[in-house]
């Protein structure tokens, strides 16, 4: 029997639904309820931390917001718990949006610290506010009921909780396997690459922050109606830390790791609470000692948690199949994808006019001027430290120019950021490849197609984006075929050779439908065969009418390939002309080989 890993995962999940129908003791059901509640929060953390690269210790506070909102509305005001659910989601979502917009732009370690601080501050707030019952909390919360059916028994609540978890799981999996999902995955790689693909990184960071908060809030709502009372303690910082532990233990980069982590940690905790006092006496809090030591040992052993290990064992029996597959033939509407009109061959497309970049007293690019015409392959060369990369960063919008102007197709781009520049038709590759190593070549290339689609995260989570998704994946697959990587379509990008990874980046850039392609030292570190393959690809693209700007210091590579060369030294242009002329230019020879004394 052949069973895909995916099926196995859902089968495992289905087993949890059978669980309450078995004659198990009530205590097990209680544990199962908590595992479900914790899994929902941990799932949000996987999305936020493992996939998006943002860490939060404060999820317990969002759980608290959800729980207290419904508790207050259903006890003091007597409103229906279902109103409480909506209100709780609204409150948590708004709080997360506010906190997120303040902190997501900061570099990595500020966010976790900030979450510690506001986690504490909300905890103290729950404990001090009069109408939330101070540290005693609120009690007498009604049980859930749906269409007159009472949902108060723990076994029924088990079903409700795991139904919610299953729903969240499906939405998250759908979301991750889509255009917005790829944008979220790109976030973990810093800002430069996603922005160069046209991804608004700040917006997506706030999005996952809000999503994680919403899931936490949902868990809080379920908790309040399961327990029928709330108090501040379970929403404190220690619980926030435990949620993160669960995600990390299970495997913070993997959606299923959230559930595994919640199962392991909750099971272990309840066992430790039973056994440790018997072994060591009851005058210490040994379970947190064991917890702490365990997490240190686990991270020493495997920094990625337990899930990759489980998946690895499973993969030995059932080799995984590619999860994301492009349609074999052009899907409906593919030919309607908007395409840029190509400028006429020979038309002026890039114009660099007296561009200058200063870092303090250092003039990295000094009044550079050159131009590129449609259909040309131009090489920007120069010895190390000549300012080529800075020039490249000015054109691609990674750095703003200090003075001078850069025009692309007549419009000024020297003050635009890279997200807007890629929109205008400048695609780029990176000198140090920026790929998501564990994703397939296809998924990596499809990141370049971000601007070619417009489906929203909500549509993606509900699978309303499948037509567009098929078009985007087909587009990506076409580009992979165009550059000759079709054999490796489903290989993880991280396992390709460096030369192939560079070519992958070109395919990704081609997905943006560029008029001008900028390649940053594409030949650096490549072997001879790889260089030849790359040169062939660039010739082929030129044959298709693409304009290319190559930044290189490898003279041999650019000589046979380019129409024209621009030579830089110490930030200024020292020569420009046909490759053959440049080869004999004395200034260039002096720059490369040292001057004649």
């Amino acid at each position, binding site marked *: 029997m052949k069973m895909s890993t995916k099926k196995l995962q859902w089968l495992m999940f289905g087993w949890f639904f059978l669980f309450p129908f078995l004659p198990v003791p009530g205590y097990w059901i209680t544990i199962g309820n908590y595992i479900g509640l914790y899994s929902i929060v941990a799932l949000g953390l996987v999305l936020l931390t493992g996939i998006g690269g943002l860490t939060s210790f404060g999820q317990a506070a969002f759980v608290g917001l959800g729980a207290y909102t419904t508790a207050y509305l259903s006890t003091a005001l007597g409103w229906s718990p279902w109103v409480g659910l909506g209100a709780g989601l609204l409150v948590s979502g708004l709080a997360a949006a506010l906190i997120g917009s303040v902190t997501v732009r900061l570099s990595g370690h500020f966010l*976790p610290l900030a979450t510690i601080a506001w986690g*504490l501050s909300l905890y103290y707030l729950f404990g*001090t506010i009069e109408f939330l019952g101070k540290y005693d909390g609120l009690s007498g919360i009604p049980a859930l009921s749906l269409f007159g059916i009472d949902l108060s028994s723990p076994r029924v609540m088990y079903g409700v909780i795991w139904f919610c978890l299953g729903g969240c799981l499906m939405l998250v999996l759908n979301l991750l396997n889509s255009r917005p999902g790829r944008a979220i995955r790109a976030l973990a790689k810093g800002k430069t690459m996603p922005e160069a693909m046209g991804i608004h990184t700040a917006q997506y960071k706030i999005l996952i922050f809000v999503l994680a908060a919403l899931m936490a809030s949902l868990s809080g709502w379920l908790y309040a109606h399961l327990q029928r009372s709330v108090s501040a303690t379970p929403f404190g910082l220690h619980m926030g830390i435990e949620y993160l*532990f669960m995600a990390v233990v299970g495997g913070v980069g993997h959606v299923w790791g959230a559930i595994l982590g919640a199962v392991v940690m909750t099971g272990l905790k309840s066992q430790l609470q039973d056994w440790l006092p018997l072994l060591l006496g009851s005058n210490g*809090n040994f379970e947190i000692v064991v917890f702490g030591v365990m997490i240190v040992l686990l991270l020493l052993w495997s920094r990625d948690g337990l899930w990759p290990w489980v998946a690895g064992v499973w993969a030995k029996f059932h080799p995984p199949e590619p999860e994301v597959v492009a349609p074999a033939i052009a899907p409906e509407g593919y030919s309607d994808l908007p395409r840029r009109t190509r400028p006429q061959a020979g038309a002026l497309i890039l114009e660099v006019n007296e561009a200058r970049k200063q870092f303090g007293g250092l003039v990295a690019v000094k009044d550079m001027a050159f131009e590129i015409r449609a259909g040309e392959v131009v090489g920007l060369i120069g010895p190390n430290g000549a300012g080529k990369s800075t020039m490249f960063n000015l054109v691609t919008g990674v750095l703003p120019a200090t003075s001078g102007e850069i025009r692309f197709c007549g419009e000024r781009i020297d003050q635009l950021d890279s997200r807007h520049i890629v929109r205008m038709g400048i695609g780029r590759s990176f000198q140090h490849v920026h790929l998501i190593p564990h994703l397939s070549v296809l998924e990596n290339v499809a990141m370049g197609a971000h601007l070619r689609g417009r489906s929203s995260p909500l549509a993606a989570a509900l699978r309303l984006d499948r037509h567009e998704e098929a078009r985007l994946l087909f587009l990506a697959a076409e580009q992979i075929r165009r550059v000759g990587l079709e054999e490796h379509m489903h290989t993880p990008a991280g396992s390709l050779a460096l030369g192939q990874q560079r070519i992958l980046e070109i395919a990704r850039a081609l997905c943006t439908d560029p008029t001008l392609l900028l390649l940053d030292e594409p030949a650096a570190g490549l072997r001879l065969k790889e260089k030849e393959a790359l040169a062939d690809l660039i010739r082929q693209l030129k044959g298709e009418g693409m304009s290319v700007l190559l930044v290189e210091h490898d003279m041999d590579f650019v000589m046979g390939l380019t129409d024209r060369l621009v030579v830089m030294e110490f930030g200024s242009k020292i020569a420009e002309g046909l490759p053959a002329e440049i080869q004999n230019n004395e200034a260039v020879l002096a720059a490369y080989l040292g001057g004649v004394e």
Partner: protein
Amino acid sequence: MDFGIFAVLAQDGVTNGAVYALLAMALVLVFSVTRIIFLPQGEFIGFGALTVAALQSSQFPKLIWLLIGIGVLTFLVELGSALRQRRYKPLPRRLLMWSVIENLIYPQFIWLLAHSLDWQGMPMAVQILFTLAITVPLGIMIYRVAFQPMAEASVLVLLIVSVGVHFAMLGMGLFIFGPEGSTTHAFTEWSTALGEMPVSGQSVVVMAVAGSLIGLLYLFFDRTLYGKALRATAVNRKGAQLVGIGTSQAGRMAFGLAAGLGTLAGTLIAPLNTVGYDTGFVVALKGFVAAIVGGLASYPLAAAGALLVGLLESYSSYWASAYKEVIVFTLIIPVLAWRSLTSGHGDEE
């Protein structure tokens, strides 16, 4: 509010601020050298204060048991890593001998010392020094056991390890010291008045100690080669290694200093506040707020942040005492908003 109350609150705020400043310094130090966000700092506050209190009431300072235990563990870890490398290089005998002295003999020596002398009658300064002789090696051993094997890991992984260590130490703290807190004797009964404002000797001692330590740290990092080497480690670990800076030693040193500063902070607050095994965490977090104001990088800014936190706490305990903690910890949001607006884009690859 008349001037008298205003002045008393200010004095209170500055005194607490000075303690937070010490903690913020230690946090900035550890983070900038090792990229570790040192959450267990709080435990050193509690452990330090409780050990001084134990010495003053002529009880045996049980923290030494922890020192002996972790010492054995550290020795085993070092022995293990030496044995694993045996294939490539000869057994580092000298290093192992030092390890025996540092991790096995030294804790026993401290144990003997604790038993053989009458600590109750000693001056408080000596008691504090003896406490430091326990906590500083403890900090170093913790670095050696938990953090050094994964010094190259990401900030997030290190942070989670840090939480793990915090949990383990907190649990051990409850076991060692029990749930009750203690206070220590006052540093001095002396007090004076500045115009209308009464000035307590306690405040003066706290401010003087904190101020001079901050000054020393500043001099150390800005004026000495070793201090600069530590900072270089923070900027680029590999680069520092290549130019011959021992990054492991730098990490141990940072942890030793941080443990010492945490202990001092604990002993500074203990005469006025009841300190339990778990008091330190929240106090240390206020140090964090201060350190974040300084961007986890700047010592003078962190000190300024600490004063701000101290004053804010002191005045809010007058105006809205129930919301004191809420106000202090919410401070971080406008601070981060301001940093986020001024810093432009923070990108880490």
